[in-house]
């Protein structure tokens, strides 16, 4: 259980490292993906319960709702992570397409060499 949080924070730290220190757009974008995955793992772990059941109420569980609630995992983080994954797909797709355009214009993926804008 605690292990999850450690891994999540490691992923976040790794993602941040990639994002801030790498000098290649593709690596930066991968860093972004790793960073958000770390956050997703963190969120999912918040609602996780070892041996819990899925939070879908059906059949005989209606008769024993408090017992069900004591067993089920928290469904909200799952919903959040699902939403967030979709959002991140959009961002990654946009980022990669921009990286393609950047490569066409500058013939490099090194962001520090893209310096038309300054002042």
């Amino acid at each position, binding site marked *: 259980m605690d292990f999850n949080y450690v891994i999540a924070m490691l992923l976040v730290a790794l993602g941040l490292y990639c994002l801030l220190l790498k000098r290649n757009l593709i690596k930066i974008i991968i860093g972004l993906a790793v960073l958000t995955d770390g956050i997703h793992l963190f969120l999912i772990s918040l609602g996780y319960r070892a041996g819990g059941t899925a939070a879908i109420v059906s059949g005989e569980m209606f008769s024993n709702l408090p017992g069900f609630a004591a067993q089920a995992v928290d469904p909200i983080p799952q919903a959040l992570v699902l*939403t967030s994954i979709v959002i991140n797909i959009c961002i990654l797709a946009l980022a990669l397409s921009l990286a393609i355009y950047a490569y066409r214009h500058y013939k490099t993926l090194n*962001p520090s060499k893209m310096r038309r804008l300054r002042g």
Partner: protein
Amino acid sequence: MAVVVPLAGAFLTPLVDVLAKRMNHPRARDYFALAVTVGTLLLVVDMATSVLGGDILVYKLGGWAPPLGINLAIDGLGLLVGLIVAGISTLVVIYSFVFMRQESGLGQYYTLMLLLTAGMMGVAFTGDIFNLYVFFEIMAISSYALVAFRRSKISIEGAIKYLIVGSLGTSFILLGIALLYGSTGTLNIADIASKLAVINTTSGSTPLISIIALTLFVVGFGIKIGMIPFHAWLPDAYQAAPSPISAIMAGGTAIVGVGALLRVSYFIFGAPMVGPLLIGLGLVTMVLGAFMALVQRDLKRLLAYSGISQMGYILLSIGLGTALGIKGGLFHMLNNAVYKSLLFLAVGAIIYRVKTSRIDELGGLGRKMPITAGVFLVGALALAGMPPFNGFASKLTIFLAGIDAGYPILSGIAAIISVVTLAYMIRAFIAVFLGPQTGRFENVKEAPRSMLFPMMVLAAVCVVLGVLPQLGFSAVEPAQEVLLNPSSYIGEVIPGA
């Protein structure tokens, strides 16, 4: 409703675009986009009467009562931001009619513009913190795409910088939300606030986890509003974006960022904890932004840096935490949105006619484009805080608030920076509009009417708010009430809490 209309409009725009092309009325989608934004504006104005009366409107999505269901809660702060956003996006759409006419892919342009509006409205009105994140991302993604819209060298560069820094910021916000959810078990802003208050009183101090979450939020939203030291993307993005987009970003998304920062920090964490942080960051942002604006050679970059500097004023004033300070900060936020988008639109008019925004290449345009020069001067003087324009009223309030709160030195620094602002705006005005005419600009004409109209509306607002500041104060007072007294909001959203 005010969120649904632009969102639905955004999804319908490509359809209207295709239909319009087939029926040989390619302008139809422009008018469609305009109709959607005007509809949004009318909806917000309609809500204004009851919210300004002190009510808080709560919509429960799907009929689930908060704190379990997702809800939209429209209070004074949300309404103020929503009003600014709806007004500016309407004017920017009108402006885009002519400005963007030569571009291709205008269907996408208006789609993204409406999505941006929907995202901004959502952030302003939502009462659910994860919902706020989702709308924030909608707003962010459409603004990345709009910055890259021309796909030229500089717009791709500006967009990619903006995207990477911006998504880092939104990731921080998500992590902050996760921490808050972990410590309170709820996502409703009002509910989080009341539960955190309980945690604080039972443990006697603020737990470390809330401090980390607050830091994450401040960094995340700070990136969006271009707070120094997170400002590096902003001048690039503003310079690279088409001018109407720069205007909507300076007048819309930046304001929405401030609104979201205030909502999260003031409602959830409370003023005493956030105040010194905002004062410090605001001071640095204000001073450095102004000095960086002083040395810029590109008109749009100059405006971008001065926008950063004005954000500093807003944060500083609100950070004071007194009623007067909050009032001044919010009023300045309203004014800043008006004159900053006015200035960006005026620069857009220059770019439209002259095809450059570099200060040293421009000169003597005043005689050729008198109306543009006039509105630019109004915007510049308002920005510098000269009477009788609106910037004067709000800056004066900020100075008074500083003295009132016992920090006369802050007022002094703010006044000095105001003089610096006047210096760089006057320098820009003289360089661009006065001076000898260069031969290249012999055939330059005044900007087309549909571009002048939005600028004149904004300039008129500058003058009206400057002459009658009571109007502005009465618009920001409900927002000030809400920030000073979040418990009424909590009570309104969750009855019995």
